[in-house]
């Protein structure tokens, strides 16, 4: 094993979607990457920052930077959390006027990668040897598409999965309507956007919708299940772990 990465699973994956994180460990290990899990890690602070509680987010920034201090590379399992780190951490750290924190943040931010971005961009891998003989459509979540610009990474990785048929998702670039606290603050609007997104998904006739943000997928799958559509959702890492040695994850 030549590389060691620290895994940032993100708070809701840790609690609600541990199988995404287990899948990511499996895929990384298969690619000869050793995984660390700094157990002080919690949350990137995005929900506080985006809702308007930036001062509270500052303390979480500090906590994140401390938790991952000394990591060679950090792989994050959420595009929106990665975008939070990349776009806002330095500014939030600067608010403390704590020079040590600022320089540690400066040092850490460029080492943080979203999972699919890490595989294609850093490791240069597109075929991880996965096998998943199903019809899949890819929903490019907003932060992965517009903040991280990693649409092509995810699509190339999916394209290399044996047996997988990638079907077009109409209006793919439109937001699913999750938006963190938007989903409850503007619940009627969120529901309207979600209805259109699930209608597109059903029209695409895929068995599974794949994305790189479990937060958006939780919202989408909540409606797909409530409406009995029979379409499942999966984080990209879980698709890439399919068909690998070791059976169930």
């Amino acid at each position: 094993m030549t590389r060691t990465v620290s895994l940032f699973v993100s708070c809701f994956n840790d609690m609600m979607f541990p199988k995404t994180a287990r899948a990511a460990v499996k895929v990384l290990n298969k690619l000869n990457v050793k995984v660390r899990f700094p157990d002080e890690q919690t949350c990137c602070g995005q929900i506080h920052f985006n809702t308007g509680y930036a001062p509270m987010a500052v303390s979480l920034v500090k906590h994140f930077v401390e938790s991952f201090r000394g990591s060679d590379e950090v792989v994050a399992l959420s595009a929106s959390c990665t975008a939070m780190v990349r776009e806002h951490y330095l500014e939030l750290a600067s608010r403390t006027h704590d020079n040590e924190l600022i320089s540690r943040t400066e040092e850490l931010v460029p080492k943080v990668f979203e999972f699919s971005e890490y595989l294609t961009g850093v490791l240069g891998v597109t075929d991880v040897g996965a096998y998943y003989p199903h019809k899949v459509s890819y929903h490019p979540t907003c932060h992965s598409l517009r903040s991280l610009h990693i649409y092509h990474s995810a699509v190339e990785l999916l394209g290399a999965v044996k047996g997988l048929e990638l079907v077009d998702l109409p209006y793919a670039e439109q937001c699913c309507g999750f938006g963190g606290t938007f989903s409850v603050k503007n619940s009627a609007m969120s529901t309207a956007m979600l209805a259109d997104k699930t209608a597109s998904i059903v029209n695409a006739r895929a068995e599974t919708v794949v994305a790189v943000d479990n937060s958006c997928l939780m919202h989408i799958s909540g409606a797909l299940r409530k409406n009995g559509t029979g379409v499942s959702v999966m984080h990209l890492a879980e698709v890439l772990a399919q068909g690998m040695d070791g059976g169930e994850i």
Partner: protein
Amino acid sequence: MKSEMAKAKTGFPFTSIEQINNSQLRANLKSATSAIREKRAKVVGEKQDWEELRRTGERIKDEVLSSLDEYLLQLEESVTKVGGIVHWAADSSEANRIILSLIQEHGESEVIKVKSLTTDELDLNEYLANHGVSAFETDLAELIVQLAHDKPSHILVPAIHKSRSEIKELFENTISKGRVLGDGPAELAEASRLYLRQKFLSSKVAVSGVNFAVAETGTVCIVESEGNGRMCLTLPKVLISVMGIEKVLPKLDDLAVFLELLPRSSTGERMNPYTSTWTGVHPGDGPEEFHLVILDNRRSHVLADPVGRQALRCIRCSACLNVCPVYERSGGHAYGSVYPGPIGAILSPQLFATEASLSLPWASTLCGACYEVCPVRIDIPRVLVHLREKVISEGYKSKSEEASFRLIALVLNAGRRFDLIQQVATRLRRPLNRLFLAGSLPGVLGKWRAARQIPEIPKETFRMWWRANGSDNGN
């Protein structure tokens, strides 16, 4: 009162509900916005240097804002030199007073108007009406809105919420009384042509907005499609143009940049049918008197916010509205402002700061589609988040929400604490999952479940699994 804002029945979450369920509006907006998105994509794709143009547009506007006082003085000097008269209005009431007194000086009781958001912002028509002056809107959509005693719902296409059959009926009851019209857009446009022709030929005073004003030459520019603008700018004796302080450009070559950016972003055309420039008064051609009213109306207040000020780069193209998934489902009226959509969500709370407008920074999922199409690269999501923080820090917040966020932050500030809470949740997962599936749920969980199932809490968290398996999983 302040802390109860979140509960009050005002603001976007409530004003949008009726629109969301208006099937006619939803259908109109969906077809209109998808059509215009496609048109924009085609003409933007043709410009190989589009991103460079956007950066140039951004740079010019930033340059203007960074020395705005100097550019305004230069503009005043240039306009005066070429025979124009410059007026300064600190707020809407002063602007309205200036415009009214200019109209009254010429003894007129009617004026014709070119579509102008700035005069909508001033409520100028209502003010003039209260003082015995009738203002006639000449842009087709503005005419429709005015005849229907309605409000604009889109920056570029103010009557986007009206269908052709509604417009046909409206015209039959107003400007085409006693006639039966078809509902074809061409026939309806013809009806407005007939009605307005006489107004154009007889009116002595016109009021317009300003798209761009060039400081070095005093040249003013209006961009339009129908020719109503040309009529208003050419035929009357007196022209009164109102501009926000942010509309000034340094040089003529800067104007050329915006003539590339604006039509492609706005109507999705390579160029709009008509663009007019005039440089003061031109003897023998056009108005004999030209007044330029320079309006602040809290724009200087927006300028004072280092993050929020980029909203002043806006050239009112409406590209952000057309790509916004929220706007597409709410229409413009839900925003309660002359500036709807994403740009309105950052402009209205800063410019007007009404209680209802303070909910607008949250009327977005922060999806970022608006930023990508903005011809002057306004980072709308960034400004939205900034304004959320600002609104909360000024006391407009829900106390219970703030307390919950404080508690969540406390838990998340230590790995051990988070682990402990997670362990409690996994132990209680059976009753919790039953509750989530079918129990009675108050608050945010209830709102969530109204449209979506809540995922089940798994039997172990990732960190629990890692403690047991992490070290022998190939590591």
